[in-house]
């Protein structure tokens, strides 16, 4: 989902920065508040960030014959919501832009929007829709919800990237361009998204086993 350095016209770079930065700023405020209110959430936050670091570094082959990477943004989206996930994604994306020449500083705003904001937002909504009432931690509903959240967050991230490229390069039309980018991005992601869903469920169930009290205080189980 990384749009490479310089691969969006400057006005689109600016546009996505203007949209993403306020959300990241709001995320930093929210992050401070959560750490103050629930200091135990700090280690949970670190695991969530570490998970995003790990998953977005894994380039996996997809059944469509290309290779791409999971995003790791579903877990953070469900536990902490999209704003805080945007902060975590920003750290990951800056690391990749500066050290790996993957993504870029000019396209950072656009990449934060897809991986840090829309992906986690979709995960958060999907999870909240499935887990509406308070549930027991033993209930497998939360695992199923987490699988779908992570899977759809991954797909949504790539759909947004395809959309961002399509509106910046509507050759010959936005629709045809969107389909072209979707064929590269979103469709190969289906198999990767399933892998990502499985891995997210594993870490999620382990978290729910050892840090149930903190997760309950963050209202993840109701």
């Amino acid at each position, binding site marked *: *989902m990384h*749009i*490479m*350095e*310089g*691969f969006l*016209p400057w006005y689109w770079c600016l546009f996505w920065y203007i949209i993403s930065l306020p959300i990241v700023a709001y995320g930093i405020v929210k992050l401070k508040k959560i750490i103050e209110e629930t200091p135990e959430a700090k*280690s949970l936050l*670190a*695991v969530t960030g*570490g*998970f*995003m*670091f*790990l*998953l*977005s*570094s*894994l*380039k*996996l*082959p*997809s*059944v469509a*014959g*290309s*290779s*791409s990477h999971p995003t790791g943004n579903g877990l953070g989206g469900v536990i902490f919501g999209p704003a805080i996930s945007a902060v975590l994604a920003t750290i990951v994306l800056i*690391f990749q*832009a*500066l*050290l*790996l*020449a*993957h993504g*870029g*500083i*000019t396209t950072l705003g656009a990449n934060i929007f897809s991986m840090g904001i829309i992906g986690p937002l979709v995960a958060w909504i999907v999870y909240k829709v499935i887990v509406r009432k308070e549930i027991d931690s033993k209930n497998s509903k939360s695992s199923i919800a987490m699988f779908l959240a992570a899977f759809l967050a991954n797909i949504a991230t790539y759909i947004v*990237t395809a959309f961002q*490229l399509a509106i910046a*390069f509507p*050759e010959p039309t936005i629709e045809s361009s969107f389909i*072209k*980018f979707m064929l*590269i991005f979103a469709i*190969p992601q289906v*198999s*990767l998204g*399933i*892998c990502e869903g*499985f*891995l997210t*469920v*594993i*870490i999620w*169930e*382990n978290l729910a*086993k*050892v*840090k149930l009290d903190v997760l309950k205080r963050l209202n993840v189980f109701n």
Partner: protein
Amino acid sequence: MRNKHIILVMLAILIATVPFALYSNLGEDEGYFTGADDKASEIVKETGYTPWFNSIWEAPSGEIESLLFAIQAAIGSFIIAYIFGYWHAKSKYNKKQ
């Protein structure tokens, strides 16, 4: 739960390795297993667009790039493993008390 997790990991590995069987003997030269991000960049270039900004620093070779990706994965796994280990030891200690 542990057995279920082992099965899930194996399924994830299986899904990730199926492409190797599907496209055996095909490689980068035939256009397989290349990065989706790079493919998208190529389509953008085909429209006649030239990037207006280049990466400040780029890994000098594929080897160095894979080193940096490995470091990224290592940082992530280190954090996860360290904290899970800490929680595990703490709960054991608390039980003894």
